[in-house]
């Protein structure tokens, strides 16, 4: 079996380090974004065409603060990791530093995500930012 394509639970214990885990997270967040955007489009369609109330139900879930924490993680991680993949594919010489680049990626991701979560949570608790 090709371990390089595995992104399930056993991958958590597969000792390949940062690049493998970012690959795995890239796939999981990709499926999360597909689910989010697909349901967003379908519920927009249902609300626009007045096909029942399930679009409003999805809207209430999407606008809740805990769901936004998940969505921001998916979108932000997928974007930053995707940009890393594109840069390393355009300049393959940089593949030598792949592990370091993954650390750099987390160094960019964590402050942005932490600030966003802080704002979302503060807004959920106090009502204002």
């Amino acid at each position: 079996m090709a371990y390089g394509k595995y992104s399930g639970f056993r991958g958590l214990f597969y000792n390949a380090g940062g690049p493998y885990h970012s690959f795995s997270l890239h796939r999981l967040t990709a499926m999360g974004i597909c689910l989010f955007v697909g349901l967003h489009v379908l519920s927009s369609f249902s609300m626009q065409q007045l096909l029942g109330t399930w679009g409003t139900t999805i809207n209430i879930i999407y606008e809740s603060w805990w769901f936004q924490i998940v969505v921001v993680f998916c979108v932000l991680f997928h974007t930053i990791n995707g940009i890393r993949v594109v840069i390393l594919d355009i300049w393959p010489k940089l593949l030598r530093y792949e592990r370091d680049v993954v650390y750099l990626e987390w160094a960019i991701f964590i402050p942005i995500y932490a600030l966003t979560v802080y704002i979302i949570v503060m807004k959920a608790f106090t009502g204002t930012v």
Partner: protein
Amino acid sequence: MRPRYVPQRGINLDYLMWLFTRISGVGIVVLALIGLGSAMYMGARLQMDLPTVLRWTFLPNPSHVINSNIPDVTMGWANAFWQIMQFLIIFLAFTHAANGLRMIAEDYVGHTLWQPFVRAFFALLWMAMIIIAVYVVIGSAY
């Protein structure tokens, strides 16, 4: 889970989709930055709040999100510029997504009899989602 079949070198569908994934990924980021910049430009004097700025970044959609104020709803998708922006995001994002899901599924299916069905399924899903999304954009303008 099966070992992956290595395609031939040269220009073929897998290579073109590999290239497209990179280009469309960068393209979506650029489109989002244009949306974000425009939201900043439009909202700077109107005290636009954060959710509204983010809605202009991706989805100035008057018929789904309730909780933020788009300053002028008719501006949303009635404007040709935002319609074209949205069509570009729809095309790039759904093609990127359908191809990505196809790759994930094919890693599990492999070169079996199921493969053409998997490809047909994602091709149909891709077409259906693009048609529905474009319909929502055009329908919101009226």
